């Protein structure tokens, strides 16, 4: 029987790198919301232009965090754009080491957009 059918919690790393709030980027966040609501452990990592999603109070990201998702942002990308003071409070800046650890973890499924 597959792990999904047994409803074991899976671990996902979703990486959003696209500029701004495109329809695809928001759909990608929506996928994360669905997985988190399904009881899975989901980390959403915003990098490059994707960090702009963490500006202000975008409701899709609020849904994601409320569903239990973990929201990380790339500190390098944030500093490069000078937007650290404008990040939403539930966005956690991290170094690339934290993401490398997740990518290396064989139990974590990684999807890059």
């Amino acid at each position: 029987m597959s792990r999904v059918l047994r409803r074991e919690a899976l671990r996902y790393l979703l990486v959003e790198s696209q500029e701004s709030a495109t329809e695809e980027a928001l759909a990608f966040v929506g996928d994360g919301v669905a997985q988190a609501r399904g009881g899975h452990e989901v980390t959403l990592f915003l990098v490059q232009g994707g960090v702009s999603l963490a500006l202000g109070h975008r409701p899709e990201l609020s849904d994601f965090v409320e569903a239990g998702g973990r929201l990380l942002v790339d500190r390098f990308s944030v500093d490069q754009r000078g937007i650290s003071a404008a990040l939403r409070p539930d966005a956690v800046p991290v170094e690339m080491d934290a993401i490398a650890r997740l990518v290396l973890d064989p139990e974590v499924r990684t999807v890059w957009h």
Partner: protein
Amino acid sequence: MALMARRIPTTDVLVTFMGAPHRTDLTTTVLRLVQSMLEQGGRVQVWACGYATMLTQQSLGEFKPRDLADWSTRHLSTATIVQEMLRAFPDQLYWYGCRFCSDDRGATDHLPEIAMRAPHAYAANLAATGKTVLIGVI
């Protein structure tokens, strides 16, 4: 005599890296990620496809062209960065290039450490890794 197939060393992660090098920050992100995985002891192979095959051309030289806004600082070329990573992590990092994509773009003179592979050989690389991450779009 039949040609022997190249043996692909097993790795933890295969990064399939596509996309134009200078369109976004993608190249910087991939190089940062690969370096972090190596520093944590991970075994990594990179398959460069599409315009990402341009990153390891010898014609790029050791440094990027001078920055007119910062004349005295020299910045390493992507070819140099990849070569230095390969030398720093000889048993952990392997860098492959898609021969078709490379030839299609006229990029035929790569670093000697880069293994150019036919597109169909990608399957062997997939079979030699625990996880595959596709980054970028051709």
